[in-house]
């Protein structure tokens, strides 16, 4: 009598087949995703390149306009700044209700919190109200860049998530064609059409106390203190706080 060969149970055979199919699908997917990622990387590269060129051109243009004007004895009046970076200097206690509310609206709820603010008539007046509690100025590209890369956290699903991956930016802001960090920096710095969304996507920056200290928080910057508008000098302060 011939020996009966050991039979493999049908369920095991089915499972094997299913696994093989799943595996094939997964490898296919992986290749697809890898290609997509490669394309995206190239796209981001091109954009970053473009922004660098753009910035250089912008800077040189301002310079040339200035030079042209001084050549003919005229004055060149550059555009009023559109972007400000505001840092809350003072703590929580014993705040007057009006500046307290304004600081809440600016999302500056903690000392040394910073946020980007679009400058217009409305926000300028708000800044006037909270002047004694904040130090603000016009950030340079380097400041914006460093802030977003080092201290940048995103508001994802109400949570504060570090910006460790371009995918985080893309899932939230992809619709506004902001797909990477460079896009984000560009949008913030140039105050583009989607500034509000991009800025709100960023969690308020939590900065350190300045390396080297404050000069005098209770006085305005022009009096030798720290609060109020310090225009371009904010970048030096940011370098000490980022």
């Amino acid at each position, binding site marked *: 009598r011939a020996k009966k060969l050991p039979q493999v149970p049908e369920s095991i055979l*089915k499972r094997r087949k299913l696994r093989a199919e799943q595996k094939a699908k997964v490898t296919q997917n992986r290749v697809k995703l890898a290609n997509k990622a490669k394309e995206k*990387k*190239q796209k*981001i*590269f091109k954009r*970053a*390149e473009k922004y*660098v060129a753009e910035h250089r051109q912008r800077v040189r243009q301002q310079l040339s306009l200035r030079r042209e004007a001084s050549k003919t004895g005229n004055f060149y009046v550059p555009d009023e700044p559109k972007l400000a970076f505001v840092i809350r200097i003072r703590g929580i206690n014993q705040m007057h209700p009006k500046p307290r509310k304004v600081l809440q609206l600016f999302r500056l709820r903690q000392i040394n919190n910073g946020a980007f603010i679009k400058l217009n008539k409305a926000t300028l007046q708000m800044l006037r109200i909270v002047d004694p509690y904040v130090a603000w100025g016009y950030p340079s590209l380097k400041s914006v860049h*460093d802030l977003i*890369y*080092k201290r940048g*956290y995103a508001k994802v699903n109400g949570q504060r*998530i*570090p*910006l*460790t*991956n*371009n*995918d*985080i930016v893309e*899932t939230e802001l992809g619709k506004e064609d902001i797909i*990477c*960090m*460079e896009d984000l920096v560009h949008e913030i710095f140039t105050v583009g059409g989607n500034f509000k969304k991009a800025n709100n996507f960023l969690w308020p920056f939590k900065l350190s106390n300045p390396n080297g200290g404050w000069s005098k928080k209770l006085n305005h910057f022009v009096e030798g203190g720290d609060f109020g508008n310090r225009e371009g000098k904010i970048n030096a302060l940011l370098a000490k706080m980022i």
Partner: protein
Amino acid sequence: MFCDGIVICPSGNMAARPLVTVYSDKNEATQTQIKLPAVFRAPIRPDVVSFIHDQVSKNKRQPYAVSTEAGHQTSAESWGTGRAVARIPRVRGGGTHRSGQGAFGNMCRGGRMFAPTKTFRRWHRRVNVAQKRYAVCSAIAASGVPALVQARGHVVDKVAEIPFVVSDKIESFRKTKEAVSFLRRSNLWDDIEKVYNSKKIRAGVGKSRNRRFKQKLGPVIVYGKDSGVIRAFRNIPGVSLLHVERLNLLKLAPGGHLGRLIVWTESAFNKLDAIFGTYKSASELKKGFTLPRPKMTNPDFGRAIRSEEIVKAVRRAPRAALKTSKVHRNPLKKTKLMVRLNPYASVLKRAAILSQRKAQNVDHPNEKLILAANAKANVARKAKYAKKTGKK
């Protein structure tokens, strides 16, 4: 956690009712086979049984209480303040030790206890009939599961079959000798031995209240008609006897624990379908009663959700959220991170390095080696190209 209606039968089908062989009083399998009564497929609910047992076991209690006048058979009165003694009521009069002693309070010697126990304490518990019946069904079902019977502590490794059904011959046993030889032949004597070996003096005050000894319980004999069974078996320690129409939860699940070893007589076993009904017909003897239904017909949830039918019908789980690192590292200091975020950064860094070297008039530390390697690569490339075109 238990599940509603544990299914132990290997076919996995809750409704499967196999045939049970009837054994003779000499433990020989007879030709008679009875279809397993539907009660044995009732859901096994240890929680229900435990609760009902708890309630029902309170019903045979006898009230106890302290005498109503205890501690008050004095006319004590407090001396009040100003006498340098505590204000507790004190026994009046004189001429005896008792006079002036504290009385009435629970803290006093010879005083009344705190909250004297009353006879009108609620001793008994009423239980819904349906619940009581549910518990009995569960207990019977559990008795049909060898694992549960063993887990309860019965010695059943040699018992022919569980549920164990015996011919009606044992109902007409008159002598305990016959009963014992039946138990021996049916390999049930080991369980009785267990009872003998477990006889111990009770811990606690019960030993001086006519409850001196404690021992384990053995099998229950469930009979259809008493033609002498009771008197034959009652002297055997551990054995309980129950008439099939008057099954007692306290005996079927002693201590609220399921799985007592039951020996059914043939007539008793046959009556079970009539007493409890089946899933297709209501009970004949219990008015308006049908067997309890389990919440899940197939409680093997894991198996069900992994089954082909369900897996095919169910949408795939949503893609997992973005995998992001939990710790934030500084891309301004870690080039790899920077390049991951901005691929163009490597170009900028390289340009910065080159311009710095140019400004300082410094070469790359391995400048010569790099130049040599590049020259070599160029030569190889040209040769390859020449070969290609030369061949063509």
